């Protein structure tokens, strides 16, 4: 398990980030073609966040941040559009910041960190939506997004735990 990315050469780092970004991008794509519409925008599983969490736990916050930003910009240009990109960016930056802080406390498991990440992701999106629409009543959405964030976060946390248990030897 690699702790610090700086111990390795830049080329190695770029290759690793590129591989993880493409993996996350594929997850974004898979998610964007799943034909389900819960009726409320913002509710989704966020499979790509599993890659973010694995990157965070395996390689550290710098890698997780880089993978996340590149993935969102590319996914925005390819599938989600510029506004979708803006929402995702706000959500995932808040989410990642929260997850890094919670991980540093060493009190939480991956599932707990992921759960907080899911909730913060939705909160970030809600904040940017409120800023864009200039209507505070959008916070009527908050309970729905909170519960969906908890559910999606736990699911992604379990997935990330299982993947890391298997992939630990390989990485």
């Amino acid at each position, binding site marked *: 398990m690699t702790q610090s990315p700086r111990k390795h050469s830049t080329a190695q780092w770029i290759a690793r980030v590129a591989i993880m970004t493409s993996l996350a991008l594929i997850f974004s794509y898979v998610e964007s073609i799943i034909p389900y519409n819960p009726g409320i*925008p913002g509710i989704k599983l966020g499979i790509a966040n599993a890659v973010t969490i694995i990157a965070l736990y395996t390689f550290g916050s710098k890698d997780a941040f880089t993978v996340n930003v590149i993935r969102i910009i590319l996914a925005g240009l390819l599938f989600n*559009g510029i*506004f*979708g990109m803006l929402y995702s960016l706000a959500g995932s930056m808040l989410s990642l910041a929260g997850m890094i802080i919670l991980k540093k*406390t060493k*009190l*939480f*498991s*991956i*599932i*707990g960190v992921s*759960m*907080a990440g899911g*909730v913060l992701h939705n909160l970030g999106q809600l904040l940017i*939506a409120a800023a*864009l*629409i*200039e*209507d505070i*009543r*959008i*916070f*009527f*959405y*908050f*309970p729905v997004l*909170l*519960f969906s964030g*908890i559910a999606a976060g736990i699911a992604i946390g379990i997935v990330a*735990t299982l993947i*890391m*248990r298997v992939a630990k030897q390989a990485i």
Partner: protein
Amino acid sequence: MKQYIRKADIILLIILIIIGVASTIFVVQSKSGGDTVIIESNGKLYGKYSLYEHHEITVEAQDKAHSHNVVIIDNGKVFVAESSCQNQVCVQHRAISRTGESIICLPNRLVVRIEGKGGGYDTITS
């Protein structure tokens, strides 16, 4: 990885669920009073009323002595309960509740419409 679920996770989950339940209660109880009902008679503004307060308004047209409409605002919905007009289209119109909807009584030149921000939440659906 020591354990898959730790005590702090459970505590965080409970806190989040409490926040969720509390905000649900808050949202359900505070049906925001932002929307306003605008009544126009004869092309002129007759009055503005909150959509979330109970009102019973009798609108008398200025030019015709016997023309009147009774507009009732109740529980976030607006409807015309009574009208002196012949066709009664406005009375039969279903109650309106969303921004942008309107009830119009042509014979009495009455317009009842709802204004406000938002308009459902269709604006953010891409």
